[in-house]
């Protein structure tokens, strides 16, 4: 929230050695703090005038434990991701993907979708820039789906909150859906369903920017800047998500959860997708909910379907892309991605 609106005086700021010392030191402090979260949360909960084993006590304990945990994890992941992504840019990605018509373009686009820094507010210029540079539409879709779907924030939080097994399953299937959906849409020859002006547009060549030479300290600064920007923006969603997770954890009876989101009811997977699409939040907000659902015995396939549809199929994103895609193309996009999500959900409910 505190984007600098004034130009900071140039050449001032911390000296380099402070960065080399400060960043590892901050990492150690965060790590030690992370290890002490259970006693801290229990201590805080005990201060409150509610019985620990009551519904309210359970919900409060969940909330008090999860808020610092998620915020610490989020800070660490966003920082590391910000530093790693400083080696990538949409311009470089576009140059790599341009003209890749062979099948390898799709997994490569998914991979670059995860690694390339871009904000959803510039997805329209990015989309036009990609398509007009001769990147096939399907490859562009793989890129756009993978970015949010298998983002590092979602994966890191899944790892920290639910465990590495489910994080790995999510990574593999999220990546497969992004690649597969792009591939299918590439085969469907959908170029004719772009908005007319996009098809006729021949965007200018990408600006010939000098290749910036960044020092390691510059990259660390980018990481810190990302923490300020992203954590400052998503903490509200995190609190809301943990609030819902806490309510589920404390108040929803297990029997009811099994009836609604258990693996027995076949309709639970499509229902999870239908509920997930209009929900607008980000990975950081939805994973505490996922944690609570799984803890109460919800089936893995149903929960995965819910999480994927919340993250990958969001209505605001569709509304932004409406500028360049016809309704028909948006509908095809939703159907193809939702099919992949449903297949994943049914598969895991069947084998587990």
């Amino acid at each position, binding site marked *: 929230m505190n984007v*600098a609106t004034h130009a900071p005086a140039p050449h001032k700021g911390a000296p380099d050695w402070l960065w080399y010392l400060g960043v590892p030191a901050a990492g150690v402090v965060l790590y030690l703090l992370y290890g002490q979260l259970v006693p801290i949360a229990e201590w805080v909960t005990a201060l409150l005038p509610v019985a620990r084993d009551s519904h309210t006590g359970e919900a409060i304990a969940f909330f008090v434990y999860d808020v610092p945990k998620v915020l610490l994890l989020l800070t660490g992941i966003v920082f590391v991701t910000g530093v790693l992504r400083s080696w990538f840019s949409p311009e470089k990605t576009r140059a790599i993907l341009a003209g890749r018509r062979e099948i390898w373009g799709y997994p490569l686009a998914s991979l670059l979708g995860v690694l390339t820094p871009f904000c959803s507010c510039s997805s329209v*210029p990015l989309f036009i820039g990609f398509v007009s540079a001769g990147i096939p539409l399907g490859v562009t879709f793989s890129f756009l789906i993978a970015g949010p779907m298998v983002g590092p924030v979602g994966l890191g939080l899944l790892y920290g909150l639910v465990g590495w097994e489910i994080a790995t399953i999510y990574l593999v299937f999220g990546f497969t859906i992004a690649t597969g959906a792009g591939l299918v849409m590439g085969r469907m020859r959908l170029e004719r369903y772009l908005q007319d002006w996009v098809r006729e*547009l021949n965007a200018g060549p990408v600006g010939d920017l000098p290749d910036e030479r960044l020092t390691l300290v510059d990259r660390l600064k980018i990481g810190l800047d990302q923490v300020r920007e992203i954590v400052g923006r998503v903490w509200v969603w995190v609190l809301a998500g943990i609030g819902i997770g806490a309510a589920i954890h404390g108040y929803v009876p297990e029997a009811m959860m099994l009836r609604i989101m258990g693996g027995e009811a076949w309709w639970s997977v499509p229902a999870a997708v239908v509920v997930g699409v209009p929900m607008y939040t980000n990975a950081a907000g939805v994973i505490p909910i996922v944690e609570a659902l799984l803890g109460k015995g919800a089936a893995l396939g149903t929960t995965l379907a819910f999480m994927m549809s919340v993250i990958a199929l969001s209505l605001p994103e569709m509304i932004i892309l409406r500028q360049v895609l016809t309704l028909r193309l948006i509908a095809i996009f939703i159907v193809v991605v939702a099919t992949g999500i449903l297949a994943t959900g049914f598969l895991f409910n069947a084998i587990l």
Partner: protein
Amino acid sequence: MKTVKVYGPGCKRCDATEAMIRDAAARLGVDVAVEKVTDAKSIAMAGVISTPGIAVDGRLVHAGGLPDAAKLDGWLAA
């Protein structure tokens, strides 16, 4: 008189970039006309795919994220 264009759909960073440019110009005593380009088509036509982008007198100098304050001074003073 320099013409500076800020390309971006109107996100927070685009506003922050515009403010940085005005501040830097005032500090350096450079006369600038800052224009915000928010239309997706025009942004793409200018070759900008990561926003905010900055062009000074028709030449693109920056794309993606807030500009570095020292570099910004350099573009405006040049």
